[in-house]
């Protein structure tokens, strides 16, 4: 019996082995085919499309940072049609893995490559050094080279406008912010949100919970709950998911969408979404490539350039506040309104900007302190 068993198994193994060898061999033989096809297609009259690569830090999903980038990529394809071909690689860890992905995109014939997270900076710089014929675009970083440039958005403008609404809607005069990691951008957004709220309601106080993650829905949700427990009735977040909004929805409080329109995740709680629309920049960069006018540098675009906006403003918001938002938007467009204009005092009461003094970009990049009205301490090293 055992003998028969063994023979049966050996036969099964042999069959499996033969099958897999045949399959593997099949794979090997198939290989030249696509290449041959490509060669046949090559002499077609139309020029090859510009191949553009995108590397994302998270999954595209249905809301938030990466979703906003991917929407802009789709807008890019819609605009340029068959003149461009885009490729995405999502959920690439920040660090050494990024270098492999960027280099591979370059080797695959992508002439323009976007890396959409800060943690890709050094890796992109390394690849850029060895691939001079390719143009690299890095979001939110500060290092550039002859063929690598940076782009960023003035998210604080959206945070300020959300603050104006929050200041008008709060009954407890306590706002809550779920914050990600204590880099100047996030601290600036907490401050701008508070400044916006104070512009319509000077009594407002802002409480902050740091979750030390960009994307961690359970943690974000916990943070939101603890802010609600401390009496906050309007929440705001500088994290990537819709968890804060959903938590507010369950608790019957108010909250905002961030990075992309999140109104569908909390129809009752949602007051407005501060969104980033990267399309204008992605279109410009592509046009630069197609026109052969790409130059290194760095941009920081806001509402004026159509990158930052406040959308899906709820009907619950009083008419006067809606008007105020429209005024701010018009002011940002025309350059007559600036969020960071004195007098602005730090949490410690120290004067940071004198009356009518306007902050320059260097000042903005160096904000490591809270404005008056924000409670708590900036975490380690802030």
């Amino acid at each position, binding site marked *: *019996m055992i003998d028969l*068993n*063994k023979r049966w*198994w*050996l036969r099964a*193994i042999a069959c*499996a*082995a033969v*099958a*897999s060898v045949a*399959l*593997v061999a*099949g*794979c*090997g033989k*198939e*290989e030249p085919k*696509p290449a041959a096809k490509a060669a046949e297609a090559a002499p077609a009259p139309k020029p090859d499309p510009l191949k553009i*690569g995108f590397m994302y830090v998270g*999954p*595209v999903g249905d809301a938030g940072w990466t979703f906003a980038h991917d929407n802009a990529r789709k807008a890019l394809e819609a605009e340029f049609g068959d003149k461009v071909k885009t*490729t*995405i*690689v*999502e*959920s*690439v*860890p*920040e*660090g*050494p*893995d990024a*270098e*492999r*992905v960027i280099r*591979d*995109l370059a080797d*695959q014939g992508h002439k323009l490559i976007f890396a959409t997270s*800060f*943690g890709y900076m*050094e890796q992109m710089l390394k690849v850029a050094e060895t691939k001079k014929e390719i143009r690299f675009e890095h979001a939110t970083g*500060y290092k550039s080279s002859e063929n690598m440039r940076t782009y960023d958005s003035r998210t604080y403008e959206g945070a300020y406008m959300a603050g104006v609404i929050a200041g008008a809607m709060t009954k407890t005069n306590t706002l809550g912010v779920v914050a990600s*990691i*204590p*880099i*100047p951008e996030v601290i600036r957004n907490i401050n701008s949100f508070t400044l916006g709220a104070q512009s319509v309601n000077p009594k407002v106080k802002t409480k902050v919970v740091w979750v*030390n993650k960009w994307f961690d829905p359970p943690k974000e949700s916990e943070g939101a709950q603890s802010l609600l427990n401390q009496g906050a009735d309007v929440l705001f977040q500088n994290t990537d998911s819709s968890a804060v909004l959903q938590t507010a929805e369950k608790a019957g409080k108010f909250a905002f969408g961030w990075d992309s329109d999140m109104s569908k995740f909390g129809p009752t709680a949602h007051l407005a979404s501060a969104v980033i629309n990267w399309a204008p920049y992605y279109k410009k960069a592509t046009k630069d490539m197609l026109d052969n006018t790409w130059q290194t540098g760095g941009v920081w675009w806001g509402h004026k350039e159509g990158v930052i906006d406040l959308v899906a403003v709820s009907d619950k918001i009083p008419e006067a506040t809606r008007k105020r938002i429209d005024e701010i938007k018009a002011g940002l467009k025309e350059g007559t309104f600036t969020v960071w204009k004195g007098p602005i005092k730090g949490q410690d009461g120290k004067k940071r900007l004198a009356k009518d003094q306007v902050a320059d970009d260097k000042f903005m*990049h*160096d904000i*490591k302190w809270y404005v008056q009205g924000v409670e708590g301490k900036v*975490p*380690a*090293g*802030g």
Partner: protein
Amino acid sequence: MRLEARPQPSVAMSIASPVIAVAITVVLGTLLFALLGKDPVRGLMVFFYEPIRSGYALSELAVKATPLILCALGLAVCYRSNIWNIGAEGQLLLGAIAGGGVALLATTATGGWIVVAILAAGAVGGMAWAGITALLRDRFNANEILVSLMLVYVAEMFLSYLVYGPWKDPKGFNFPQTQMFPASTQVPLLVTGTRLHLGFLIALAAVAAVWIFMFRTMAGFQLLVGGLAPLAARYAGFSSRKALWTTLLLSGGVAGIAGALEAAGPLGQLTPHVSPGYGFTAIIVAFVGRLHPCGIVLAALLLSMFIIGGEFAQSRLGLPRSLTGVFQGLLLFSLLACDTLIHFRIIWARRLAWNR
């Protein structure tokens, strides 16, 4: 159909099971790609062929596999000795912190010996972190699974504290990162033009060393006996305390070296993202490699192949990442399922009736 334990493990099956698993994955993968409207041949090629198609591709595979091999080696020794260390990730991070700390002391004028100091510091860092688990288990009988796992989060927070705080690059616009380490700290490259570094050879040497230790020394034998039959080991006078400390310090040490290699190798600085979870992936590697040093090398290469293949599937076929995850899961699932056949055989119900 039911499973029946074999009187002894089948040698034929232990060789055939990975082959069957790959065959099953190929068949299911073909179905999966066909259902998605993608060319199945291209689909299989991005996973099985593209990651090994050239010398450069192989070098990337080795870079990715290095920390996995090192961490999994230490874990295999622990698991064979019945010590359940889940915290290789934390031990790796402490290795990166200790190694990175030494690297930050270096200047451009420092000699190449600094790399030795960095790796030694990494090993000590990892051992110290694993030592906490050993100490708590030894003195207070605290569960090592929980302690080692919880220490991963402590290690993450400690790393964050350093890169947001005292070790932050003063010129880094307040971003959480140290300055780039000076070039002298770079782990030597094996082939110029690639990222393949000395770490891969260190990992292979560690494989040989662990193999000799486990299967050719008395100390290793004592550990194996302690894992397989704790009472027999006790009767023979083998110290379970010694086993606890040896295995944890060993696995902490190699994980620490892996961390130092990452920091002073492909990364070149400390950031909160030193490891994309190598310490946890290494648990899978250890078991797919059947807790055997040589198996671990193959398993680490296989997993790296699938991680890289997953990226290729996105960039070449436009498959979403979640689907590449499904394909990776298919292979792991069939591998582990087929390994059942080594210790069990399938009895078909019809045959069973006939036997009766």
